[in-house]
């Protein structure tokens, strides 16, 4: 009886340790999006210039949907030049960059677009509906949508040149296949 207990008590800690190992290895900030692999939610917004901006208008292209805000410093300030650069480099190859400005004031957003000389379409999401449709936690968050209109990659934090190039090249290469 006592010999059994001597083994049973240390053995009982094994499942507890396994549970802790599982729990502590997971990054609590790294929350997987259930939207990856699913069709990108549609939206119809007005750009800061007043032009209509709808996701469906870009069906058949690789669409990079970037959620940002003028108060999101420094990450959004770091990635704005990257997005503009990448947009200029890829716009002729069936790639569209779309900016969605969330929880922001129109004047501040317009100043941000002006300061960075952004030429890709940027729209405000005044009710937050588009942000919630995309399951946005904070800014910046970027969704890479393939030519079939499915969300393929969700990137949290500032987009770098490498992330943009690698992801978009992959989606373009795959879309070229029949």
């Amino acid at each position, binding site marked *: 009886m006592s010999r059994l207990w001597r083994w049973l008590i240390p053995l*009982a800690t094994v499942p507890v340790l396994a*549970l802790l190992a599982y729990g502590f290895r997971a990054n609590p900030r790294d*929350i*997987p*999006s*259930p*939207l990856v692999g699913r069709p990108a939610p549609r939206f119809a*917004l*007005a*750009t*800061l*210039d*007043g032009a209509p901006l709808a996701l469906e208008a870009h069906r058949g292209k690789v669409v990079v949907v970037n959620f940002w805000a003028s108060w999101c410093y420094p990450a959004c300030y770091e990635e704005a030049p990257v997005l503009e650069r990448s947009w200029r480099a890829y716009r002729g190859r069936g790639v569209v960059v779309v900016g969605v400005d969330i*929880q922001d004031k*129109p004047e501040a957003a*317009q100043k941000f677009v002006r300061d960075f000389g952004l030429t890709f379409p940027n729209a*405000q999401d*005044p*009710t*937050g*509906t588009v*942000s*919630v*449709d*995309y*399951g*946005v*936690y*904070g800014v910046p968050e970027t969704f890479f949508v393939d030519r079939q209109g499915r969300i393929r990659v969700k990137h949290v934090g500032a987009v770098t040149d490498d992330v943009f190039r690698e992801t978009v090249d992959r989606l373009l290469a795959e879309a070229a296949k029949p």
Partner: protein
Amino acid sequence: MSREWLRRLAAPVLVLLVSVAAGAQPPAAPVSEDTVHEVATQLRCVVCQSLSVADSPSEMASQMRGIIRARLAAGERPAEVIQYFVDRYGEWILLAPRRRGFNLLVWLFPLVAVATGLVLVATIVRRWTRRRRDGVAAPVNVDPAMSERIRREMERGT
């Protein structure tokens, strides 16, 4: 010059029109604020730490309450509104995990731990009492002078 001015004016006018149109979309069904609150208390505010959408003063939470209200006004049931958020954020958005699958561990583990503890305590207590009974049954050889001294000291103590 005048075109530039027109363009500047166009943006806010369009935004206003879009938001008016969005606001006008749901039929004018009265939505009880209690129901909005009830749904909001079950959802996690995504920009906060351990706060519900009902309790957070953040703009994100306020917009989420607006979305809850609009979806209820459009005729969705509270469970459907919650499912809409779960579909977009995963079960992470729920303040209390659902009682099924792996999540059941959260509910069962404390019960199992308490049950194991009770069995352990019962076993140990039984073992102690048995040992004491054994001790009474088999008297130990003590020097008569020593036991006399112990008896005297205990009497003095009381």
